[in-house]
């Protein structure tokens, strides 16, 4: 009797899941390819929360951190999820950079771009007690001795945090870019390393420095945006204002795995385009000093092709390009 009952229960469950097949019918897996507290992590958690808050997605969303390899670990993980409609990952310039520097064999072509959501920018910060008060002072010190300033960041060597600093240094006239010390902290020790004086300059994103700036423990010397941002960081000059002709856009967007079913791609482009029009989204974008920059699938792909060429040029100049 019990056995029969059990068989009944199980078959009832199977039937139930088959009939409930309206996408998404299961909890969704969102992946941040970096550690907690970083830009990727913040972006995808905020997206997950906004989707919940606005009830655009009612299925539970589980965010998983997969740090390592400057995003390479997450990218490799997505290759094991081909065709899965339930796994979504967030990425930004390192997706292209780690491929161009030869740190991963996979590129943005091994993912399905869903939508670009925001633009963020880089920030260069020093500790409150630092002798540097402007970015130009840092660059002058580097011009005298490229080894005199220790730079730290979150992304891997040759990736975003490193590149944005080198681009600024190059525009400021620093030579011997290869001699500049760059150390990557991928487990969330970057701020502690800066405050403790283990590195001199932290090259990172706006969100990463906002909290520490408000507590008054750090000084932010410059941002890589084309013009000043609003909010807490409104007092921070852009590189251009400081006489350094460089800017760096940190775009962030969502991707599905390769061969993600069309219905899922369509669902996400739709849902995300609705999400970016909500007040809730406006509110978080303002909170993190981001800039709204929605761009759906196809366009996003074209954009990626274009910036990929731009990065290639920069990396070649810096001697970090490892292709062809």
């Amino acid at each position, binding site marked *: 009797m019990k056995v029969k009952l059990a068989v009944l229960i199980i078959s009832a469950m199977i039937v139930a899941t088959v009939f409930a097949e309206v996408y998404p019918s299961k909890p969704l897996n969102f992946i941040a390819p970096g550690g907690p507290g970083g830009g990727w992590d913040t972006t995808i958690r905020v997206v997950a929360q906004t989707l919940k808050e606005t009830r655009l997605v009612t299925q539970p969303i589980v965010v998983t951190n997969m740090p390592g390899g400057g995003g390479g670990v997450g990218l490799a*993980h997505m290759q094991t999820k081909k065709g899965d409609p339930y796994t979504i990952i967030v990425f930004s310039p390192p997706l292209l950079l780690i491929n161009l520097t030869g740190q991963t064999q996979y590129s943005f072509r091994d993912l399905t771009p869903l939508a670009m959501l925001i633009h963020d920018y880089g920030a260069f910060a020093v500790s409150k007690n630092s002798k540097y008060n402007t970015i130009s002072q840092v660059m002058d010190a580097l011009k005298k001795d490229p080894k005199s300033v220790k730079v730290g960041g979150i992304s891997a060597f040759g990736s975003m945090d490193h590149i944005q600093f080198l681009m600024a240094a190059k525009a400021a006239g620093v030579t011997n870019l290869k001699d500049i010390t760059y150390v990557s902290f991928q487990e969330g020790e970057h*701020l502690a390393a800066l405050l403790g004086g283990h590195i001199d300059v932290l090259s990172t994103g706006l969100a990463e420095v906002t*909290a520490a700036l408000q507590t008054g423990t750090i000084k932010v010397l410059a941002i890589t945006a084309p013009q000043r941002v609003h909010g807490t960081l409104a007092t921070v000059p852009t590189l251009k204002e400081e006489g350094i002709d460089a800017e760096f856009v940190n775009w962030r967007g969502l991707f599905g795995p390769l061969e993600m079913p069309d219905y899922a791609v369509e669902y996400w482009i739709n849902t995300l385009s609705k999400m970016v029009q909500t007040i809730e989204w406006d509110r978080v974008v303002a909170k993190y000093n981001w800039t709204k920059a929605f761009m759906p699938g196809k366009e996003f792909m074209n954009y990626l092709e274009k910036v990929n060429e731009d990065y290639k040029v920069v990396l070649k100049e810096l001697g970090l390009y490892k292709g062809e």
Partner: protein
Amino acid sequence: MPTLEYLMYGFRVVFIPSNFLWLTLGCFLGTVIGMLPGLGPATGIALLLPLTFVMKPETALITMCAIFYGAMFGGSRSSILLNIPGDGSAVASCFDGYPMTLKGEAEAALAISAIASFIGGLISSVAFVLLALPLAKVALMFGPPEYFALMVLALTATASMSEGKILKGLLSMVLGLMVAMVGLDPQSGVSRFTFGNLELQGGIDFFVVIIGVYGLGEVLKNLEKMGRKEVMQPIKKKFGRIWISKEQWRRSIVPILRATPVGFLIGILPGAGGTIAALMSYNIEKSLSKEPERFGKGAIEGLAAPEAANNACSIGAILPTFTLGIPGSGTAAIMLGALMIYGLQPGPLLFEFYPEIGWGVVASLFVGNVIAALMNLPLAGLLVRILAVPPKILYPLITALCFIGVYAINLSVVDFYLLIVFGLLGYAMRKFEIPTAPMILASVVGRKFEQSFRQSLMLSHGDFSIFFKSGISITLLILAALSLIYPIVSGALKKRRHAI
């Protein structure tokens, strides 16, 4: 004294009924999650995040903290009863906790674990109130070379812990470090020892190692006993009160008081974590003990120390999060994220501008520890009955739980095969009498160990003297050298005495 006034204010916040209710729920959820292999406080807090939207910020943070230390209370239950650590920081609780169970002292083991956790938590909460800011500054003195030195000490001390088997201890340590080498190198992105397997690129989660070596390894060992036709009675049929004797209390109290500051200080360092704290305090107790031979055979002080240390550590980890905005652990990082979502800036100003949050959380540490301890004593009375299940039924169920727990970490089946491999390895290590603790610790800290080594050398442009530039790292390295030399020398001396 304003601090006391603020603290009283914090207590009033905690005892608002809704806050109190959530605090209790958080402790319970944390305890349950901590007990299950594969799930840690990070899972619990992540689960709770959507709920926290409707809560006031202080309620949400109080609940999150409750989950955090609730998990520390719960994590050691399965270590003690089944020899399967619920979390990395509960590994050290296996060493003497499980032998106590086998000796029929499960009740005392569970009781001392709750009591030690409680005392460790309480003292750390006091330290939190009094020393938050100066201690946070100490944490900042730890840069890559200091982390490297700290981990050298933790590793060598653990490797030399098993007397007379230093070579095997070192071997076990190196194996653990090798496990940590697998995957993409975080600095350069080079893939190492992945054999072309994509899922291995993310590295081997140390949790798979723990569950394999302890959980599955333990099951295999017991299968062997069953095969030998040894009578396999349930471990225990009669159950007593969950409490300890005066003698046991006398033995435990000093180790608890010693372990608490060790755990608290290690907790403050971002990224060091509970596994180091628990193992270090175990090492300290063993080396200070007059009867080190009792350790590993069910010495109650060998359980009390790591239990106090890991709870103290979890409270220490919250400190830099709140005072400096620097998370001390993955879990603390999620809390930091939550703080920021509410638009709150962590730091000393948090306590000035939002006393109900800052001091409410601090007061909740006190109240939560009492609740978790009170909840754990009767809960232990229920849990201990697991031991009455006949092994022939218990072990298959444990095996299945190991697999599911491992699956829950990465949602990957590759981890199943790794689990089997590590289960076999754990079984083989027991056969060859190779200690397992050094391997576990090494697989937990291995990645950070190598990274801090390389970060140091990058900072110094390849100059090794960076490791000897600060007082902290020199002291730690000297202690590490001593921990290796001491057992060899004392062993030689003992032998000479015998010869004469």
